[in-house]
């Protein structure tokens, strides 16, 4: 399925969308950019931290609310579009539901297990309890209610056409986001035969029953890194941070890197992305699934 079709069909206006679930690596930028191109509106974004992608969607006016622990630009600092939206209501006001990393993971596990809430001691003493009224203190512990995204968009190293995805490196909250979400859109660096994916069922991230679309999108996570494929493009993050300082600068960046680009292939051609391609390969030792 093309990215354009996957976003059109599975990320409607008003959807609650989990992205960036590995934290800094494997962020589905290509999917986010396609949401911007399609003019998606009123999204609720869900993630632990967001390394620039949420900032871009917010700046483009796609976002009504954010449920996250951190929104900014990890190596560069503040998220300028996030600031303009929250401080000035530009291009539109957004509602912020504050979490910490641990508590947003627990919110997704609560949804995954269909628990009414998960109790935890984290957040005790934090004003996050004051600004996110959904987090209640009862009997001295915080109750984190379930968070059910409509869709989790995950970029992975490889998947087959049936949605059996292999993801490696730090997993962040990818597993619980996928299990909590009503549906999963997979973006994969490599589309492989089932012989590859089923040769290692322990590395399959999620049940295929949850996956509604598999998009073969090489380089779809640039400028974030992807183990075995892409280094982090620090320069791109720095350039984005500088250009997004002003609203005009951001509009110029958006035009150049999103709106005037038809798809990810064209983006990568414009970018000369080969400079950040991983060239040192480090294959894992195989596991033996022998059975008889």
């Amino acid at each position, binding site marked *: 399925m093309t990215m354009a079709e996957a976003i059109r069909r599975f990320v409607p206006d008003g959807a609650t969308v989990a992205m960036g679930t590995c934290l800094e690596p494997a962020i589905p930028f290509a999917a986010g950019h396609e949401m911007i191109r399609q003019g998606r509106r009123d999204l609720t974004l869900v993630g632990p*931290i967001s390394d620039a992608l949420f900032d871009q969607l917010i700046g483009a006016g796609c976002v009504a609310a954010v449920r996250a622990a951190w929104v900014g630009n990890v*190596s560069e600092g503040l998220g300028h579009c996030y600031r303009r939206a929250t401080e000035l209501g530009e291009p539109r006001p957004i509602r912020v539901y504050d979490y910490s990393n641990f508590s947003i993971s627990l919110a997704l596990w609560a949804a995954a297990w269909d628990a009414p809430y998960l109790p935890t001691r*984290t957040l005790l003493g*934090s004003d996050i309890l004051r*600004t996110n009224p959904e987090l209640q203190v009862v009997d001295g512990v915080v109750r984190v209610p379930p968070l059910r995204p409509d869709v989790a968009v995950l970029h992975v190293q490889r998947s087959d056409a049936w949605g059996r995805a292999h993801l490696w*490196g730090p997993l962040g909250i990818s597993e619980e986001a996928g299990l909590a979400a009503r549906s999963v859109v997979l973006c994969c660096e490599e589309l492989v035969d089932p012989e590859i994916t089923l040769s290692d069922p322990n590395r399959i991230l999620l049940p295929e029953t949850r996956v509604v679309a598999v998009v073969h999108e090489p380089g779809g996570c640039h400028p974030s890194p992807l183990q075995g494929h892409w280094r982090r493009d620090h320069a791109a993050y720095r350039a984005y941070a500088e250009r997004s300082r002003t609203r005009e600068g951001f509009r110029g960046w958006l035009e150049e890197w999103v709106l005037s680009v038809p798809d990810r292939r064209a983006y990568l051609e414009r970018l000369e992305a080969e400079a950040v391609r991983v060239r040192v390969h480090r294959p894992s030792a195989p596991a033996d699934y022998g059975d008889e």
Partner: protein
Amino acid sequence: MSASGSAPYTPQELMVAAAAREIRDGELVFVGMRLPILAYGVARNTHAPRARALYELGLMRDRAPEAFLATMGDPPNVVAALWATRMSNVMALMAQGQVDLGFIGGAEVDRFGNLNTSYIGDPARPRVKLPGSGGGADIAILSRRWITLMAHEPRRLVERVSYVTSPGHGDGTPGWRRRNGLPGGGPVAIVTTMAVLRFPPEGGEAYLDSVHPGHSVEEVRARTGWDLKVPDRVRSTPAPTAEELGWIRRLDPEGHWTRSP
């Protein structure tokens, strides 16, 4: 802000060295962003060869990769990791009290060690929207002890933060954390560009412990947003050793974190 013009190191390099010395051998350290990533690398390669690092995105390591890391998620940080897993598993160790030391960055800290990384001004219409907690609140509440690193400016070291993202010693009254159910021990030090502030073992209010070379007690007090407690004897923060500087410059060869303006 810089140390004396002739100093053979930058203020950030001194902060990294000071932070590294807070890591004891054999400890499990929850490493945050930026300077703490370097501090772990320095400690691991000098006095704390058996210190392990835990990264909230889902990694445990027993050595610093010899490559520049702009983020904990850069691919070299995954190679030869001891564990690549889910964030909730890393948080489990912290919730169990297994994390000896955590690092948290912050925009504002107050005399009781409370950190604000969320909102300056009314949260409903903030003057400045900061990125938020990330794992900061979790580290502040759950790790056995923690440290924050910060530029020493009056607008950053404030009397009381307007928003407590990551709780320190609360209102500073004895037993505040225990009374409020926070399992971890709270902040033990604030490492700034000018000084190291510490907290008494029982918590409460920060005091000046050491002043970095090139700065004075008066300067530190003037740049602190509350009436900073100064004991009779204030040490001079030891300068980074040649070995420490060597490691810092190997781990941040272009000075992204330690020699930027």
